[in-house]
């Protein structure tokens, strides 16, 4: 396992000497700022309206976590659907296009070391993204008093979602030598994963799947959005943590299998 750091270090370094990292970070911070501002503006407008109608009870129940931070994190988790495939598309595809896979695969290291090293590099980048998101709720602490544990749980949720998306993106990248295909494939997989809960909602609402409530529950379990929302609500449950762990583990295994299979073809 001693090569994991070597692989991760090189990957991160090349991410930061290429424009990719900076473009992603810049655009991501612009989006984060935009969505944060819109959450805050919506909140103030809501407060003003409640004051106008003298709805003091409702006004008392308002809090920054539910009205500002939760929707903001929700939108950012959707932004990650687009951003993460951009980070992961090159992980393995670029090595194949470059011919450098021949170097890695003829060096004395295991495929696990390659996969984990690459994954850790991308995960570190996702951590930077989440840290950037964290700055904005941080601002709220200057002017108000949101709940710290709930905010932290929400950010943890965003980070876990990011890590799971990264594993899926890594898998997509391991299947092809084209970064474009890796991007599109990752994006579609992530979108499906995210949309599964909508499908489940249709079932629960008595649509075509109405009778199969087990299926509905199963889809809901598979979908990333429900687990994420639990964390944003401040509920850190092992079920959700286990879900993310399984998701990450299985897609990294798939990536490893995909790289190995090239040798045996």
């Amino acid at each position: 396992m001693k090569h994991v750091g070597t692989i991760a270090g090189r990957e991160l370094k090349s991410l930061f000497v290429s424009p990719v990292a900076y473009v992603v970070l810049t655009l991501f911070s612009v989006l984060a700022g935009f969505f944060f501002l819109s959450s805050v503006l919506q909140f103030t407008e809501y407060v003003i309206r409640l004051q106008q109608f003298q709805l003091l009870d409702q006004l008392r129940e308002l809090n920054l976590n539910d009205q500002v931070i939760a929707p903001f994190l929700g939108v950012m988790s959707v932004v990650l659907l687009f951003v993460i495939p951009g980070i992961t598309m090159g992980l393995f595809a670029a090595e194949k296009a470059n011919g450098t896979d021949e170097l890695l695969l003829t060096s004395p290291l295991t495929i696990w070391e390659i996969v984990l090293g690459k994954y850790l590099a991308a995960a570190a980048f996702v951590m930077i993204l989440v840290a950037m998101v964290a700055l904005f709720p941080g601002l709220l602490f200057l002017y108000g008093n949101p709940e710290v544990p709930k905010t932290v749980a929400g950010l943890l949720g965003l980070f876990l979602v990011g890590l799971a998306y990264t594993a899926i993106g890594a898998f997509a990248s391991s299947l092809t030598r084209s970064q474009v295909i890796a991007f599109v494939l990752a994006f579609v997989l992530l979108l499906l994963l995210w949309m599964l809960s909508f499908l489940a909602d249709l079932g629960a609402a008595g649509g075509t799947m109405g009778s199969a409530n087990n299926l509905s529950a199963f889809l809901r379990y598979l979908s990333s959005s429900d687990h994420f929302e639990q964390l944003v609500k401040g509920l850190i449950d092992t079920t959700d943590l286990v879900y993310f762990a399984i998701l990450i583990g299985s897609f990294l295994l798939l990536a490893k299998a995909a790289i190995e299979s090239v040798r045996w073809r």
Partner: protein
Amino acid sequence: MIAAKHLSKRYGDLLAVHDVSFDVAKGEVVGFLGPNGAGKTTTMRILTGFLPPSDGQAVIDGHDMFEDPLAARRSVGYLPESPPLYPEMDVQGYLTFVAKLKDVPRKERREAVSRALERCGLKDVRRRVIGALSKGFRQRVGLAQAIVHSPPVLILDEPTIGLDPIQIREIRGLIADLASPKGGETQHTVILSTHILPEVEAICRRVILIHRGSKVVDSPLSELTQGGRSLEQVFAQQTARDLAAPAESA
């Protein structure tokens, strides 16, 4: 040093390499010849552990590539047909990265990298970004990458392809140096593939010719060319003969 035992490689219905066996002794420089598509690259990829053989065994420096892949790979330096370079890295950073991958101990890493830089004439460009180097220099970086961990075995796939005549001469000189080093440096056993015949005459003492996946010639260069025959005649004769005979892959 290098033992190929009955290697075969099948891609679906295509038999790319068929029952190829040979031994290469320490310090030998073997030219691996054959027309394009003869199975040279496939054989070399099997010897370096990049591809598993469908059948047979590859043993490098006493380590079986399948049974003990990590030790076997540690003993090989490999320059693939297109050098495996990261264009965004600088030369020294890249070679340090490769040295880490190849398990060069931390203490010896600097020394190993500067030795490889020296031997391949890269001292002056060691801070340059690889993507900005000329093709000849990139090829040298590829070669430096293969020797940075002083492996006993070197496998070079068309090391001079796409270079200009002066660069070709330099690379050939370098390869000849690697096989017969001056004082203290590792003596490498070299297999290099090419379809440029003068290259073989310039640096190899032994020739293995493969054609349509099978070995057709394996003998010292001096024997092949005795009686005034040129290597080119031998090559033409061998590959033509097999064309007439029923192809073994069919």
